[in-house]
């Protein structure tokens, strides 16, 4: 079977770079140890090899579709939901008192990474169920928790997020779905939602929709939005399930992730759709954003996973495909020689290394964000605030870098195969179609960039940024203890100074009230800033690799660690310098994209 993840790289990052075992000292995680996590990851890999990877292409060729009011999906969706309940994947990070296993989210991210790399069309179903159940657990009353959460954690019922409406995409303040209060303790809801991932199919007995709506008479804008539980089938007094006037009106056929259904749902067409308020009225968006932040990490993980799978597919091809001859120092090729494998060509190696630094850099970024999430749960006071701020700052980066740069990585993977990469006989074209949605799901790259520059960089007077700079300085200090890493430590330090220079130019624009201009190149800033962050993470990986080489512990062969140092050097030669190209754009006085009175876009 073709490889789609490298388990050694995952373990290296979990155990040696991000030191998963340091979490086990906290009471919340004390029942865990590395052995247990490794058995779990192996189990997930077995499941992925046997059930997920073999149907990955079939799910693209036979996509989910709508017929007679129903959504038809691949049977693997049903088996996966059942297995995710049985293995404890859906319940993994929940509190024990809510039926969970209190696993560190870092370890669960590793498990999802394996499964999504095997088949990215399936894991959204349990992922959204996890997210919806977390919202109920965090903000719902005891009735909602008891009535819905256990069946969701077991995989028997599925969960979704219902935000988008036909007239309101990213602009949630414009939603019109309305909830009418009744005297019975529930609301009657009416409205339509589109782009609802995993919204319906035959393999789950019930679907629990977490829906945003306005209570009749609520104030306009985002402050009038409330959160509701709306089951597809409501629970009758005798415990049986009855239809709840949720109609599946259609589906959306997508260019990728075609096995992951995207639905159009109509609520209350017959004025009989009951909804239960979650938490307090008008606080729905705040609650939903808790789930959205987790979901953004999950989408970043989706980009990472596809980039990993594409890298391994193109690497395998490059190791098997003979073509052309290497250029000799004379500048000529010897046609009498046998053709070489394409992995011997410098440009192919460049494309492979580019993929490697993007996907492994993304893995490190996502594991680190998850670690801050895990630590934020168990620390107190200043330490807790630090972890929260770092998580907040890195969340838009962790959503964007693996999805935007991941797409570039997959594109390079396809290029490795040349014309065959563009043909449906090979899988690379599917990966490229699949990853494209990731920069759109859960807030587009543009929205993430506004969040980063407009909110996260400046929050608490820039405290998160200062904390991140301290972390980077610490890595630079460690790198300076190795002669071979000193030049790279210096380069990272220079790029930190460049970042400060860019911010010194941008932040005064906001202070002067030129807010639109301040944010107009937020996406360029995201590209600039995320390159710095991933450069730091690569230097950190190289430090750990060097430390392991010196220690002689040899958890992995020396070549393994040397390959990490080599990849860091590649990142610093080919990727980090791009910041210098972006800085002049960010600090330019020229304003070309803000709408003026005279339209210039013809």
């Amino acid at each position: 079977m073709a490889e789609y993840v490298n388990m050694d790289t995952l373990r290296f990052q979990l155990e040696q770079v991000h030191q998963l075992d340091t979490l086990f000292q906290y009471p919340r995680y004390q029942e865990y140890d590395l052995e247990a996590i490794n058995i779990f990851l192996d189990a997930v890999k077995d499941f992925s090899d046997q059930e997920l990877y073999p149907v990955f292409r079939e799910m693209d060729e036979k996509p989910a579709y709508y017929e007679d009011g129903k959504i038809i999906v691949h049977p693997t969706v049903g088996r996966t939901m059942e297995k995710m309940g049985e293995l404890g994947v859906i319940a993994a990070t929940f509190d024990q008192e809510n039926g969970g296993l209190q696993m560190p989210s870092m370890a669960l991210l590793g498990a999802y990474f394996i499964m999504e790399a095997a088949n990215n069309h399936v894991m959204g179903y349990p992922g959204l169920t996890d997210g919806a159940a977390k919202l109920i657990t965090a903000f719902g009353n005891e009735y909602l928790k008891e009535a819905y959460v256990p069946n969701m954690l077991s995989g028997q019922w599925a969960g979704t997020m219902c935000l988008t409406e036909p007239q309101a995409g990213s602009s949630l303040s414009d939603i019109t779905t309305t909830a009418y209060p009744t005297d019975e303790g529930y609301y009657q809801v009416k409205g339509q939602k589109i782009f609802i991932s995993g919204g319906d199919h035959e393999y789950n007995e019930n679907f629990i929709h977490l829906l945003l709506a306005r209570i009749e008479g609520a104030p306009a804008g985002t402050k009038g939005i409330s959160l509701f539980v709306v089951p597809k089938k409501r629970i009758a007094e005798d415990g049986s399930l009855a239809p709840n006037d949720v109609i599946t009106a259609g589906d959306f056929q997508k260019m990728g992730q075609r096995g992951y259904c995207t639905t159009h749902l109509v609520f209350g067409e017959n004025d009989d759709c009951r909804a239960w308020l979650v938490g307090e009225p008008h606080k729905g968006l705040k609650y939903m954003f808790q789930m959205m932040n987790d979901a953004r990490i999950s989408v970043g993980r989706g980009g990472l996973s596809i980039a990993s799978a594409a890298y391994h597919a193109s690497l395998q091809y490059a190791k098997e495909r003979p073509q052309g001859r290497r250029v000799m120092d004379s500048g000529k090729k010897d046609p009498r020689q046998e053709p070489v494998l394409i992995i011997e060509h410098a440009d192919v190696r460049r494309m492979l290394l580019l993929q490697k630094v993007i996907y492994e850099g993304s893995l490190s970024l996502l594991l680190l964000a998850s670690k801050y999430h895990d630590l934020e749960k168990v620390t107190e006071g200043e330490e807790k605030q630090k972890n929260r701020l770092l998580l907040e700052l890195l969340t838009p980066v962790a959503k964007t870098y693996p999805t935007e740069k991941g797409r570039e990585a997959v594109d390079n993977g396809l290029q490795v195969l040349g014309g065959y990469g563009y043909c449906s006989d090979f899988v690379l074209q599917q990966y490229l179609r699949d990853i494209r949605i990731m920069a759109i799901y859960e807030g587009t790259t543009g929205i993430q960039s506004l969040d980063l520059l407009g909110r996260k960089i400046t929050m608490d007077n820039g405290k998160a940024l200062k904390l991140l700079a301290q972390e980077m300085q610490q890595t630079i200090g460690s790198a300076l203890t190795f002669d071979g890493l000193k030049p790279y430590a210096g380069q990272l330090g220079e790029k930190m100074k460049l970042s400060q220079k860019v911010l010194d130019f941008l932040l005064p624009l906001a202070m002067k009230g030129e807010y639109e201009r301040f944010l107009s190149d937020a996406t360029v800033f995201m590209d600039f800033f995320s390159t710095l962050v991933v450069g730091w993470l690569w230097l950190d990986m190289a430090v750990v690799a060097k430390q392991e080489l010196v220690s002689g512990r040899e958890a992995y062969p020396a070549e393994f660690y040397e390959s990490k140092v080599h990849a860091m050097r590649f990142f610093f030669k080919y990727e980090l310098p791009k910041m210098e190209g972006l800085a002049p754009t960010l600090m330019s006085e020229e304003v070309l994209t803000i709408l003026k009175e005279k339209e210039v876009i013809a």
Partner: protein
Amino acid sequence: MKLLVCVSKTPETTAKIAFTNDNTEFDSSGVQYIMNPYDEWYALVRALELKEAQGGSVTIIHVGPAANDTIIRKGLAIGADEAVRIDAEPPSALYVARQVAEYAKNENFDIVFLGKESIDYNGSEVGPMLAEMLGLPFVSHATRLEMEGNKAMIVADIDGGDAQLEVETPFVISAAKGLAEQRIPNMRGIMMAKRKPLKVVEPVEAEGLAVAVRFELPPEKGDVKLIDPENMDELVRLLHEEAKVI
């Protein structure tokens, strides 16, 4: 029913196999290990199915050092009730059989399970040796096992077909593909495994009667030669003179 399952450690199926010390020793550097799939997927799972259907207990036994406890823990996570580890680095199949027999002889197990072979040395030796030492019947390569009271109906793989056998407990049985379906441990099982008993037993003296003198890897595959379908004479010549198969 009181059931014993012997589990061994083997290199992971994709591990690169190499030898050191002038080809006299297996080179374990960089090799990941797993529980022998025939022991795990078929022997252990069928034992668990019988326990679940009829009650009783499943004990797993392994001969190896403490570093192999991960493999034992996986067996416990899949559902075994307890484990025994004979604390020794086994030099041969005879040594393993001797250790397991020593432990099992006074424990009155109804059935002793093991995989039909380990996927590294493929010796299929421990099962028959163990049965002989315990003075029990031995059925090899079982693909089906059903119990009626203390009588077992077994279907076993034989060259070119199946054999249907009956045997009464106690007996030793080696498991082949088809006896059960692989079970993947869940997280609750993995956590519970830590709390299940693992007894460490000192080995008894046992002599090895045969020693491995040297290992040889199969020759590397040569380049593929494409022959024009019209040129059968050339194909026959190559098969005769180069491949030497006709």
